[in-house]
């Protein structure tokens, strides 16, 4: 088992759009003065929603906004599993595979998505559209198998349902 550092990435500083900054400042405003670090996790969600993943330059910018050291942002971003530290597809499928989902068939769903998209867990389709990841318990145990994509829960998954979901995301992407 080899632990790897983040993939080589472009470290050119990034700027955040005025809309992003408005959103970020609102979040900072939720916390008492001097406690702005509390906004960090939610800001990382904002960053990832805008960029699709959580890059080093984006984290550096967050550190600058919160007046903390970049390492404090890296430490937090790497602790929480929702932050994609390397580039991912437009749509990331995170399929739950813990006990309650496993006993109602999550393994079959994962295998089906792998076959359907022709990727392995962790991989991204060649068109950059989909990434498949597994997740540990997403808190939808009674409605399993469950997966999440862009904060949306897809429940009671069947192979037919997976087909529909993939088709819907493809269509949405094209119509964009």
């Amino acid at each position, binding site marked *: 088992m080899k632990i790897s550092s983040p993939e080589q990435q472009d470290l050119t500083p990034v700027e955040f759009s005025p809309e992003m900054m408005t959103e970020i400042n609102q979040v900072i405003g939720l916390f008492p003065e001097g406690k702005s670090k509390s906004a960090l*996790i939610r800001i990382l969600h904002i960053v990832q929603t805008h960029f699709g993943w959580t890059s080093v330059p984006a984290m550096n910018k967050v550190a600058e906004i919160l007046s903390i050291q970049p390492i404090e942002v890296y430490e*937090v971003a790497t602790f929480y*599993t929702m*932050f994609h530290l390397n580039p991912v597809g437009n749509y990331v499928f995170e399929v739950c595979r813990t*006990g*309650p989902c496993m*006993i109602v068939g999550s393994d079959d769903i994962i295998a089906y998505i792998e076959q359907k998209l022709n990727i392995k867990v962790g991989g991204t389709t060649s068109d950059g559209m989909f990434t498949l990841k597994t997740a*540990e318990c997403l*808190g939808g145990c*009674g409605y399993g198998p469950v997966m999440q994509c862009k904060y949306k829960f897809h429940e009671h998954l069947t192979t037919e349902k997976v087909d529909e979901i993939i088709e819907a995301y493809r269509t949405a992407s094209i119509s964009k």
Partner: protein
Amino acid sequence: MAGRKLLLENVHIPGIETYDVYRKNGGYASVEKALKKMTPEEVVEEVKKSGLRGRGGAGFPTGMKWSFLAKPEGVPRYLVCNADESEPGTFKDRYLMEKIPHLLIEGMITSSYALGANVSYIYIRGEFMYILHILEKAIAEARANGMLGKNIMGSGYDLELVVAPGGGAYICGEETALLESLEGKRGNPRMKPPFPAVKGLWGCPTVVNNVETIAAVVPIVNHGGEDYAKIGIERSTGTKLISASGNLVRPGVYEIEMGVSVEEFIYGDDYCQGIANGKRMKACIPGGSSVPILPAHLVTKTAAGENRLMTYESLADGGFASGSMLGSGGFIVFDEDQCIVKNTYTFARFYAHESCGQCSPCREGTGWMEKVLHRLDHGHGTIEDISLLEEINKKIEGNTICPLGDAAAWPVAAAIRHFREEFEWHVTHAAEAQTRNYGLIQPRVEEIKTL
């Protein structure tokens, strides 16, 4: 007759997620009553009388927890709601917050008043971002109607409510890890003492309560603690939300009166309606993945042959030898075709994945158990691996900073205790174990009684 409902009674009313409908159906009555007619101490007293125990899993008496809150002059106090619902098998808080968000907001206001907090936080797991937006909308509505902000209902009491998301970490359900995370840090549990009641959020006295616990304060204040305590048996009072999952005809979230029999809950028409696809039950984990698994013959009856009830005490009857725990109420049922070894492996993988990595027994031990169980599940294990697992979990249990170590160790220990022959079969019939499941096990009642 499915019993009284105190939390979900109105959940099916169309529009109940909006302030107007919620208020029209008796919502925010507890805020009105508490702020206008009661002192904070009187609210705490009612909660004590109710016998309410923490609904997140530990079952600590809520009134007692509240009374431990330090109240130094000039230092703010905080109420933090633990909405980091992540225990496998548990999805009740998500249901409550999504369907009837104002119940949580109402509970937060009444409870914050009781504790003297003027800013309170709801920490919700990051995966539930859509519920964060539901809650923020409800908060905005409550504020627009004078239930939040300055001088609520003319009482002179001020309260702000803030929702903050996590980023994907089960450990943040542990209250001190939650506080670290709410401070924008890694979710490493803190060393205790000091407890949050003395030094919590930003070093200030803090109470951390589960969503369901805070919601339960609403009926307690409305009808009085004594009325609440009339429901249930012994020290299991009131109603409890149960998340039912696995191979059931009707999985989902149920509000039950404490004391319903386990048999009624699994097979009754008002509840889960039995095992799906006409199969037989093999095992059940009654309180979320961290509590001991029970084989079918110990689920509906205790080792002494008495009916097992849905209460803290009855589910724990028999201790670790033949009992389990109510925990968070994450009720997972396995049919005869499920593989206990594989399920135990997924749980071990879950805990290894969720260990914060701070203390050595948990960081190294959970990963080790995961790997050994992976081997056993995939037919590469040895008989010695089974005793190795038992030894590893004995060395983790009790030796870690926070309860995640115990939570990781107990399910493995219990699975081996009750399903040892299935684990052994995975070694002796390794190839066959890859093609079919072991099926039901023989009850080992005598052995278990003497354990």
